[in-house]
Structure formats: structure tokens, C-alpha cells
């Protein structure tokens, strides 16, 4: 162990690694080769279930010591096999940060969490103190050393988990979807920390992540996995130069890369990996001029982009609503109305009051002031059973909403306690067909994939007769393919039923961009409410309230200066620019 520890410049190497979980019919990893050099940042991405998390466990030596199954090949650090080491020995070479920070913070305060590992190693007190100070400093948590972990934000918790892992002094850090539960501000905090670690401390960083836009600009290599195999392992520009593997696996590419593929002549030398690179490449080109012209024309032609809601009272309304927790305002004097058939996205930083606001629509929580109403009728706090029939609320953790032993029983669940509605949004046979459960009615919900379980929870809500569908972070932790599938499903549900949809989301690029109207919340108040394309045309205002505008929106603003609205789809943006290219007649 001492010898391995001494090899501070060693490389992490996976050599022909295959692994099958105990009792599993198929292998989770197949002949994986991977190499991570000191200070290198490797982004691993791939569709859900492709073996990314299993690879992370193997790289940290937790397979096979703590996760049992059949392992072939070997993972080494500095030539020393990790499989022969105890977990705490391997952790001093390769540290793992898990997805959910709540489950990996064992102690009550930040400082005791960071000190936990070195204390277990029985290091001398000065060494423990030095490690703790360094870890807190490098993760930017020094100012919160005495804070109780339950009071930390998501980003702070994740940084504390990173600090605690770093306290074991690993040479490589492996992070399994560290950004999935974080708002854009929290994500930037964590990414900033990792950037510093790689650049200044020479720590190798392996990030498993679906949010490629945010990691792409500073990754040294991109690894794409599919079916337990590494199908691509190249520097980012080379990795995204060919769209084939990405389209084949359904894994998302950064928006700037997609734009470059749509308009290759504008990026003759290299693919842009960030908004800044794209801006530099496009400034003073016909594209910038065309975008400005297109924006000016839209401003003349399109007064509003939000489809008018159906006449009549709003489906949901909040009138002067305030909610306080422990004397602190969580929602502060919010007045808002959602009309029949609208699709509205509530966005904002963690703690901005989004979930509190939507919870009130089914009676979860009590306003300290104001009223919440469904179709003009006040929502009574605590009467969840009554209001759940009107407002279908899908929680972020859809697994927590499944209680039955078969798919069919799950869909019938609600009718055991209330009468079947005469006009359901979908009846049970329709829902089985519509959501793709035909032939699986007698399967256990737990035999479905994660996406399948989410579809089942959604279907089970829609077999009632709700007037509105409220979705709390429905695309968190989903890969691009699953997210697109879910968005398509929502489109189909809307087309079929005309149901009103309210989403709470951090997914600015996907879910929020799909909705027609966006409500920006900041510190419990409505800060901006309008058509999605207009709200996203205000990157500075969004940033002030902890929201990062979508990359394409920032690109347009950087190129053209302030505009009244922005286009949020690559194809739409490319088409608009081509249509207004100098020398092309305006449509």
C-alpha cells in the first residue's frame, strides 16, 4: 500500500474489464479499457443503464470488494491492482463521490464530515487538521466549516462530499452524476471546484454526467458508453466531430456542437465546446448579422408567443400567497394564474419556492397569507385526498409513488378509494395502450426500467380526471434520449387530452424550453413571467436569480446584443439564420 501511495503520478487504468452482477443474466460491463492521467478530466456519458455507474464502482475498487459479481480484467493505479486492496486503501488512490449527497454525509457538521476519513486512518492530529483545512479551502467550504449538514444547499452538500472524499487524498476523483440534483448555480459551484482540483492539484477527475453542455468546455476526454462497452474515447472535439455514435446511442451533444453540425461552414477549424468559443467563431460573420435581422423581424411580426388560454376562470391561481417556514418566507406575496390548456414552467434556484408553490395546489402546506384556487374554488390546506382528484402532482421521486404489486393494480389503485370518474383523462385500458404497458399488465412495477416506472406513475395519475398535471423535476437525472422520450410523451398527452401542465424544473435547456410560458422565481417572489423565448432573452436577470440561460440564448445575446426574444432550438435557429442570410430574399 505504501508503495502504491507513493506513486503520486500514477495513472488509473482499466484493462479489459467485464463485470456481471450476482445473478444477472447479462454483463453490465464488457471489455472496458480506460486510462486516466494525473490532472486529466474525463467525461463519461451514455444512456441510462449503459454501465456508467458500474464502471465508476469498478474504477474505485468497490467492485468486487463491496459490490458482488463476476469481475474479469483488472483496474490498476500506478500498476497496482485495486481489486486486491481494501476499500479504504483503494479510496486513498481513487475516491468516489456518489450521486446523492444526502446519503454520503454521515456526520452532522461539515468539519466533522471532512475529518471522518483521516480520523479513521488514525493519522496524527496535525496531519488531520492540515488535510481538513486543505479540503475545505479547495472546495470553497472553509467559511461553513461549523455548519450543520442539514442546513446546507444541494451544491454545498455535494462540495462537502467532495471535500470528505478528498480528505483521503485520492489521486483520482470519480463522480457519479454529481450535478443531477443541483440547480445551475450549485452545478457551477461543484464544477468550479473540480476545475481547480484538476488544474492546480493535478487530481485526475472522472465525471459521469448527462449534463454535457456544462462539462464539455473543460473535459480533456469524452467517453461514450453503450451496452456496457466504451464505444468512443476521444478528446471532446474529436468525440463530437462524428454525430453517428451519438445519434445511434441517443445521447445528447452540447447545443453549440449541434449548431456547428447544422452550419458546418461557420466552424471550419474546430467545433465550439462552449458559448464563448461559439461566440468567438461567429462574431463578425453573416450569422451574427442574420440573427439580428431575424430577431428584428420577429419583434415586428410576433407580439406574443404564448398561446392564449381558453376563456373562463384560470385552472390554477395563487392570489397574494405567502408561505413561511420557521419565520422565514419561502413564498412571498405571489400572484399568478394558469389558464386552461397552458404549459407553464416554474424555474428558479434551489429554495426559490417553486415546489412550495405547486404543493399548495393540492393542499400540501398552508399559506400564511393569500388564497390558492383550482377553477375558482379555494384549495383547503391539508385536504390532499380531495384536491389530488383535481390536480395530479407527480413527485420528482416517482418510485415513491408506486405502491402495488402489478402494473394493472397500480393503475387501478386510486379507484379503491374513490369512484371512477365518468370522464377520465384516460381510462385504464387506454392508459395501458398509450403508455406502452400492453402485455406487461401483470408485471411488477419494479420490473420496469426507471423511465417505465416514471411513465407508470404518470399514467396512474391520469386515469383519474385531473384538470391539471403538475410535474416536479420530472427529467432530473435522465439522459437525453429518455428526456426526449418523456417530452414527446407529454406532447402526446397534451395533444390527446388538452390537459394543462405546470412543471417545476432546473432543466432549462430541455423541459423549460419546451413550455410556452416561463415563470422565474427568486427568493420566493415572481421575478419574471412571460413567453419562454422572451424570458430566456434576459440572461443577466436570470443569472441574478440563480438561473443560467440556455446556451443558445446566451449565444444569441452575445452575438446580437439585447433582443426581445431568443430561439431555443438548434434547427430553428439555423433555419432562421439561413433565411436571413445576406443575399437571401426574406421569406
Amino acid at each position: 500500500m505504501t508503495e502504491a501511495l507513493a506513486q503520486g503520478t500514477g495513472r488509473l487504468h482499466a484493462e479489459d474489464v467485464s463485470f456481471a452482477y450476482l445473478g444477472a443474466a447479462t454483463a453490465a460491463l464488457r471489455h472496458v479499457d480506460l486510462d486516466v492521467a494525473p490532472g486529466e478530466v474525463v467525461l463519461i456519458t451514455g444512456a441510462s443503464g449503459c454501465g456508467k455507474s458500474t464502471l465508476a464502482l469498478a474504477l474505485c475498487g468497490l467492485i468486487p470488494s463491496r459490490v458482488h459479481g463476476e469481475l474479469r480484467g483488472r483496474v490498476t493505479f500506478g500498476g497496482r491492482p485495486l481489486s486486491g486492496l481494501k476499500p479504504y486503501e483503494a479510496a486513498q488512490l481513487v475516491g468516489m463521490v456518489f450521486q446523492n449527497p444526502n446519503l454520503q454525509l454521515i456526520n452532522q457538521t461539515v468539519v466533522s464530515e471532512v475529518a471522518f476519513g483521516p480520523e479513521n486512518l488514525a493519522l496524527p492530529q496535525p496531519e488531520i487538521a492540515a488535510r481538513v483545512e486543505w479540503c475545505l479551502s479547495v472546495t470553497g467550504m472553509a467559511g461553513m466549516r461549523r455548519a450543520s449538514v442539514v442546513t446546507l444547499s444541494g451544491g454545498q452538500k455535494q462540495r462537502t462530499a467532495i471535500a470528505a472524499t478528498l480528505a483521503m487524498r485520492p489521486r483520482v476523483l470519480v463522480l457519479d452524476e454529481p450535478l443531477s440534483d443541483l440547480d445551475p448555480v450549485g452545478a457551477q459551484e461543484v464544477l468550479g471546484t473540480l476545475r481547480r482540483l484538476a488544474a492546480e492539484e493535478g487530481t485526475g477527475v472522472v465525471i459521469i454526467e448527462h449534463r454535457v453542455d456544462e462539462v464539455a468546455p473543460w473535459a480533456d476526454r469524452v467517453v461514450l458508453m453503450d451496452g456496457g462497452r466504451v464505444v468512443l474515447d476521444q478528446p471532446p472535439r474529436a468525440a463530437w466531430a462524428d454525430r453517428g455514435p451519438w445519434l445511434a446511442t441517443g445521447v445528447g451533444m452540447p447545443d453549440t456542437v449541434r449548431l456547428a453540425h447544422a452550419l458546418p461552414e461557420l466552424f471550419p477549424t474546430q467545433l465550439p465546446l462552449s458559448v464563448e468559443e461559439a461566440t468567438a467563431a461567429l462574431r463578425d460573420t453573416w450569422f451574427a448579422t442574420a440573427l439580428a435581422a431575424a430577431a428584428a423581424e420577429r419583434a415586428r411580426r410576433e407580439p406574443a408567443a404564448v398561446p392564449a388560454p381558453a376563456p373562463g376562470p384560470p385552472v390554477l391561481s395563487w392570489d397574494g400567497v405567502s408561505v413561511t417556514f420557521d419565520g422565514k418566507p419561502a413564498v412571498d406575496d405571489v400572484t399568478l394564474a394558469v389558464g386552461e390548456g397552458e404549459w407553464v414552467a416554474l424555474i428558479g434556484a434551489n429554495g426559490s419556492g417553486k415546489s412550495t408553490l405547486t404543493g399548495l395546489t393540492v393542499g400540501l402546506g398552508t399559506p400564511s397569507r393569500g388564497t390558492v384556487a383550482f377553477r375558482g374554488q379555494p384549495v383547503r390546506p391539508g385536504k390532499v385526498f380531495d384536491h389530488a382528484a383535481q390536480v395530479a402532482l407527480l413527485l420528482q421521486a416517482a418510485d415513491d409513488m408506486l405502491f402495488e404489486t402489478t402494473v394493472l393494480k397500480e393503475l387501478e389503485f386510486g379507484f379503491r378509494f374513490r369512484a371512477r370518474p365518468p370522464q377520465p383523462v384516460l381510462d385504464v385500458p387506454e392508459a395501458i395502450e398509450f403508455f406502452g404497458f400492453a402485455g406487461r399488465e401483470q408485471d411488477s412495477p419494479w420490473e420496469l426500467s426507471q423511465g417505465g416506472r416514471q411513465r407508470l406513475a404518470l399514467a396512474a395519475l391520469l386515469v383519474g380526471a385531473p384538470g391539471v398535471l403538475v410535474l416536479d423535476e420530472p427529467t432530473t437525472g435522465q439522459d437525453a434520449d429518455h428526456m426526449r422520450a418523456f417530452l414527446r410523451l407529454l406532447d402526446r398527452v397534451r395533444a390527446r387530452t388538452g390537459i394543462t401542465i405546470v412543471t417545476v424544473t432546473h432543466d432549462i435547456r430541455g423541459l423549460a424550453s419546451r413550455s410556452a410560458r416561463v415563470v422565474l422565481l427568486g427568493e420566493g417572489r415572481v421575478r419574471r413571467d412571460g413567453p419562454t423565448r422572451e424570458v430566456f432573452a434576459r440572461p443577466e436577470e436570470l443569472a441574478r436569480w440563480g438561473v443560467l440561460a440556455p446556451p443558445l440564448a446566451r449565444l444569441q445575446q452575445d452575438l446580437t446584443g439585447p433582443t426581445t426574444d431568443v430561439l431555443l432550438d438548434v434547427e430553428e435557429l439555423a433555419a432562421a439564420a439561413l433565411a436571413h442570410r445576406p443575399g437571401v430574399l426574406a421569406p
Partner: protein
Amino acid sequence: MIHSLFAQTVIAYLLIFAVPLVLPFAFIKLVGLGGLRTLVTYEARDTPLHNLDPRLKVLYPIGMGVLSILLTWKLMLIAFALTILPWFWLRPSRQKVRVLAVMVVGPGLAGFWGQGMYYLPPPPIHYLYKFPWTLAWLGSPGITTYGMVFGIEQTARVLVTVSTSMLILVSTDVSDFTWAFERFRAPPQVGFALTAALRFLPEMIARTNLVLRAVELRGYDMSRPKWYQFNRWPNYAKRLSRCVVLVTVPLLIGTLRGTTTMAMVADARGFGARKRRGSLRVHKTTAVDIWGYAILIALVVTALILNHLNVGARYYG
């Protein structure tokens, strides 16, 4: 009218059920699952109590527990009052005060009321309210003054330990407990078990709360009848008991997933790697610590002497 058998029976039944009905109501309204979550959470502050020698903090509830066994009658009430004083020093959050008040006053009220009805001193008995035969056949002849006083004493006995334990939990980071246990030569597993329990109990309660919400959102009727809707209460109880079965699966699956991750994290952080652990903490004994030890020793010794001399001893009949 008020002296009629019917009126006396009604009053007696109201008296006998008043406290058992008020307590759950007070718990649900003032504490609930959310409040329970904050009950054992550490509140990081910089008070002398927070900085006290962790070993003394471990010994303090034990010492006070000894006192609660040795002392009797008014001395017990004095000991209880002494355990309340440090709370003023600590100044916990309002939410915690509310939860603690219910958790302390509730059992206190229950003990006081129960002993008042069922503790029977030797005659002559002074009744605050004598139950008519329509209720007395249940075993309680009425509410006695002596029984209530006895109830106060017995309640104070329990609350001394509760108050001191809570005080220490609120003002001590669990890692300090671990440090103290190790100084007492206890195995590291003891400290880790306590750490895990105190850290994850609030998480577990929060998760239970979430799943209970989810089951309602799926259309399961958890609505509580009004207190006077007697015919609906049996059905409510039935629904509650069925709900336990329903929420068990998601709770169990979530908990198993969580504990697997936590075990891997503990392994990776080297828990159990060495027989003895190191410590970030360097505790220098301060004057406050010395005073603390002195007071605790003085209290225990005084209690032993008083007990030996039979001072404050009391014949319960």
C-alpha cells in the same frame, strides 16, 4: 343537576379522557413528523455549552440519571429545575423549543394525570373529584391530590433524564460523542452507531413524510374525521393501518438503497481500518469544564449522602 349521577358520570368520563385525547392532538398539531425530524438535530452555535468537554457531556445525563434514582420528593423537583436552567443558556431555535416543550410537557401531563387517578395513598384520601360508581368500577375511585403530587414527582424523575439528554444532543456534534466514547475506551462502532442513528433518523422521518404524501397524492384517503364524527374513526384507523403496509415497500427499497451507499461510503472513508481512531479535536480543559465536573460530582455525592441519611425520603404508603 350537576350532582346528578348522569352529570357526574359525564364529567368523570371527560376528566378521564381529557389528557389522553389532548396529547395526540397536541403532538400532531405542534410537532408532527416534521417536528420530530428536528428533535435530535444538532444546532451548531458557539456557546460555552457547545465547547464543553465532550466527556463531561456524556457523563452529565448519566450523573443526572443517578440523581433521578436516588432523590425523592421535592429534591427531585429541584433536580429537574436545575436541568432546565442550561436551556436558557443554550437559547435553542423557536421550533426546537416548541417541539421540546410538547415532548416534555406531554409525558409530564400524562404521568401527573395518570397517577392522580390510579395512585391510591392510604386513607384518609383527599379527592379533587370523586368518580361515581358508573366509572369507579373501572378501577379509579377519583382524582386524588396525593396521587397528583406523586405523579409530579415521578414525572420529574423521567424528565430529568429526558431534559439532560436532549440538551446534550442539541449542543453536541456527534463526532464529539465519538471522541468521548473513544477516550472512555469504547469501541469505535459505538460512536459510529450513534452517529449514523442521529444523522439519518431525521432523513428517515423526512422520507416517511414524503411517502405518506405520495400515497395521498395517488388517491389514498388519509383525511382525518372531525372529532365528533365517531362513526368514521374506526374506518380511519383501518385506513391508517392499511397505509402502513402500502408505504412499507417504497420505504424499504429506498432505505436499502441508502444504507448500501452509506456502507460503501463508510468503507471508503476507512471506517474500521484501525483499531484506534485519530481525532481532529484537541480538547484543552477549561475552567468551565472543571466547574462542570465539580458541580456534577458535588450533585451526585450530595444525592448519595442525602439518600444515605434518608433526607427527603418519603413514605408512599
